[in-house]
C-alpha cells in the first residue's frame, strides 16, 4: 500500500481555560493519500477545525496545547518542526481555505497584494510574472475581469467572490494538500454549489489532496473519497463514502444519516439525535456518545470503546453494534 501524504496519529489538543481544561481533540487519527479527498464530518464544536489548525500549527498557544500524537507529512513530524520550517510548509505545501470569507481577507490591502504576497513568500519571482500569475489564478477561480479586480479591496467583492479569492490564494503555490474548513458554510446555497464544484475541479486538475471539513453530509456525498466521522474530539467511524452512507456502523453516523431529509422520508417527521454535543471540558466517561445513544449498555458508561474493523478500511468505535452484527 502506498504511503499517506499526511498521517495524523493519536493527536491530542487541549485548551486550557481559566478554570477548566477542554480536551478539544482527544486522540484523533486519520490518513490522507496523494490525490485523495478526505472529509472530516461532525457537528460544530467536535474538534474538526482545531485538528485542521493543528496541522498547520495555527492553534493559538496559549490557551491551546498539543498534548500528544504525531502529524506526519511526507514522513516528517510537523509537531516537531521549528517555526521557520513550518513557514515554508504553510501556504507552499499545505494551504488552507477558511470558513469565513467575509473576515478572512485583510480589509486594508488589495486582493492583488494579498495573492501576490502568498506567492512571493515562497518563490523568488519577477514582478511581471508574479502579476501574470495572480491574474491567471484569479481567472482560474472564475473571477471575471481579473486584471481590474486585482486592484479592488475585499469589501468591494461579494461573499462568493471573496471565497474564490481565498481559494485562489490557497492554490497559488500549487500545494500538495489543501485543507478547506467549511468553505461554503457562510455562503448562499446557490453559491455553495458553485464554489464546491470549482474547488473539486481545481483540485482534480492540479492533482492535489484535500482535507474537507464540513458538517454537511450532502457535501460529503458529493466530493469525498473517504470519510471520517468525528464526535467529541475523536473519530467515531471511518470508511469510504459508500461504506459510510450505505452501511453506517456507528450509532452516531446512523443518527446523522437518519436526520438528513430525503424524498423517501417525505411527510414523515425528521429524525433527530436527542441531546447536544458535550462540552469539551466536561465529557462523559466511557463512550462520549453514550448519553445520546439508543444502544447504550453498561460497558459504554465506563470504558472508552475500542475500534472494530469491518474490513476494507471501514472502522467504527462501537463494539455494541459490532457484537450485534456478529
Amino acid at each position, binding site marked *: 500500500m502506498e504511503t499517506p501524504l499526511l498521517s495524523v496519529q493519536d493527536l491530542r489538543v487541549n485548551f486550557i481555560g481559566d478554570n*477548566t481544561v477542554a480536551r478539544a481533540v482527544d486522540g484523533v487519527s486519520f490518513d490522507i493519500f496523494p490525490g485523495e479527498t478526505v472529509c472530516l464530518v461532525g457537528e460544530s464544536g467536535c474538534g474538526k477545525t482545531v485538528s485542521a489548525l493543528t496541522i498547520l500549527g495555527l492553534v493559538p498557544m496559549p490557551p491551546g496545547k498539543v498534548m500528544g500524537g504525531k502529524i506526519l507529512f511526507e514522513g516528517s513530524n510537523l509537531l516537531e518542526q521549528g517555526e521557520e520550517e513550518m513557514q515554508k510548509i504553510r501556504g507552499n505545501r499545505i494551504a488552507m481555505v477558511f470558513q469565513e470569507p467575509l473576515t478572512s481577507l485583510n480589509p486594508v490591502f488589495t486582493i492583488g497584494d494579498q495573492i501576490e504576497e502568498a506567492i512571493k513568500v515562497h518563490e523568488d519571482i519577477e514582478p511581471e510574472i508574479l502579476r501574470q500569475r495572480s491574474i491567471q489564478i484569479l481567472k482560474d477561480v472564475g473571477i471575471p475581469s481579473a486584471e481590474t479586480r486585482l486592484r479592488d479591496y475585499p469589501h468591494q467583492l461579494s461573499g462568493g467572490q471573496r471565497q474564490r479569492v481565498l481559494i485562489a490564494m490557497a492554490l497559488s503555490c500549487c500545494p500538495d494538500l489543501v485543507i478547506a474548513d467549511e468553505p461554503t458554510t457562510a455562503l448562499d446555497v446557490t453559491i455553495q454549489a458553485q464554489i464546491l464544484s470549482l474547488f473539486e475541479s481545481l483540485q482534480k486538475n492540479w492533482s492535489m489532496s484535500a482535507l474537507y471539513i464540513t458538517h454537511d453530509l450532502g457535501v460529503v456525498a458529493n466530493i469525498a473519497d473517504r470519510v471520517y466521522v468525528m464526535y467529541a474530539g475523536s473519530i467515531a467511524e471511518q470508511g469510504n463514502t459508500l461504506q459510510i452512507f450505505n452501511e453506517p456502523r456507528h450509532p452516531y453516523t446512523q443518527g446523522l444519516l437518519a436526520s438528513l431529509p430525503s424524498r423517501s422520508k417525505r411527510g414523515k417527521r425528521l429524525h433527530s439525535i436527542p441531546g447536544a454535543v458535550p462540552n469539551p471540558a466536561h465529557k462523559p466517561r466511557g463512550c462520549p456518545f453514550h448519553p445520546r445513544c439508543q444502544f447504550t449498555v453498561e460497558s459504554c458508561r465506563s470504558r472508552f470503546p475500542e475500534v472494530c474493523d469491518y474490513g476494507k478500511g471501514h472502522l467504527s468505535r462501537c463494539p455494541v453494534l459490532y457484537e450485534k452484527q456478529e
Partner: protein
Amino acid sequence: MTNNQETLEGLLAPKRTRIQEFWLLFKKNRLAILGLVFFVLFFLIALAGLFLTSGHDPVFNPALIRLQEKLLPPLSTPNPNTLRPDEHPTLGFYLFGTDNLGRDVFARMLQGAWVSLTVGFVAVGISLVVGIFMGGIAGYFGQNHIRVHHILATCLLIAGAVFAVLGHVYPAALLVAGVALYILGMLRTKQPHKNGPLTSWLALFRMEAVSIDTLIMRIVDIMLCFPSFFLILTVVALLPASMYNIMIVIGLTSWMGSTRFVRAEFLSLREQDFVTAARALGVRNLRIIFRHMMPNAVAPVLVSATIGIATAILTEAGLSFLGFGVPPPHATWGNILSDGKRFIFDAPWLTFIPGITILLVVLSFNLFGEGLRDALNPKLRER
C-alpha cells in the same frame, strides 16, 4: 427517562451562577484583587477617618495647631514639656510627622481620606446619573423627534423662569399661563380631530425639528469641546469655594463618556431579540429599560465609574494643588500636598505621604476597574 434527561443536561455545562463565574475570573487577576483589597481598606479607613476626626472632641484632631512642634519628621515624639496634656497626639507620637503649623499630618490624612472619597463618589454619582439618563434617552428614544412645539414650549418656560428670576411678576405669570395652556392643549390633541381650520397650523407646530439622539449627541460634542480641566478650573474659580461645588462641577463636566457608553449599549440591546420579545408582550418602555436593558448595560458603566472615581480624586488633588480645591477647614490630600510643596527640601514627608497615598488609592481604583472590565467582558478574557 427523567434520569437520562438530567445526565444530558448536566453534561452540557457546569452549573455556575453569573456571579460565581465572574468571581472565578476576577480571582485570576492578582492585580485586581490587590486593587480590591486596597479599595476596601481605603473605604474602611475613610469611614474611620470620618468618625475619628469629626465632632466636638475628635480622637485625632486635624486642626489642632502646635506651633512649637512644627515640621517634625514622621514617627517623632512630641516634647511633653512644651505641650498641654490635651495637645498630645493620640498615638503618643506623630506617625506621619507634623506640618508647618505643627498639625498632626496623620490626623489630617485621615480627615482627607473621607473628603477624597466623598468627592470621588459624589462627582461620579452625578456624572453617572446625568450620563445614564442622557445616554438612555438617546439610545432608547433616540429615533423620536423633537417637534417645533416642544421647542417653543421650552422657550416659553425658560423665558418665564428668567422673568421670574428678574422679578417681573406679570410677564412671568403670563408665560406660565401660556405653558399651562400648552400642556392642556397637548392633552386635548391626544384625541385625533382631523378636520378644522386649525389643522394646518397644528401641522406647522408638529413639524419634526431634530431627533432626540442627534440633539443629545450634539450636546455631548459641545461639552467635549471644552478642555475639561481648564473648564473645571474656571468654574471652580468663579464659584464660591466649597467642597460641594467642586463635586458638582467635576460631575457635570465628566458625564459625556458614560452617555456614550450607555447609548451605544442601548442601541445594540434595542435590536436584540429579548427586547423585541418583551415589546411584543406589551411590556411598558420603562420596564423594558430598567428590567431588561439596564442590567445588561450596567457592566461597562460600572467599570467607567470605578475609573471615574480615580480620575475625580486626581482632579480634586490637582485643583487643590492650584489653590482651588476644597477650602481650608477640611484637609484634603491635595491641599496637604500643596501646602507641603513650600517645604519640599526641609520636610519632604509633607509631599511624599499624601503623594504616595493618592497614588496608591488611585492605582487601586484603576486596577480594580480594569479587573472588573476583564471579568465582565468575556470577549476580552483571553487577553
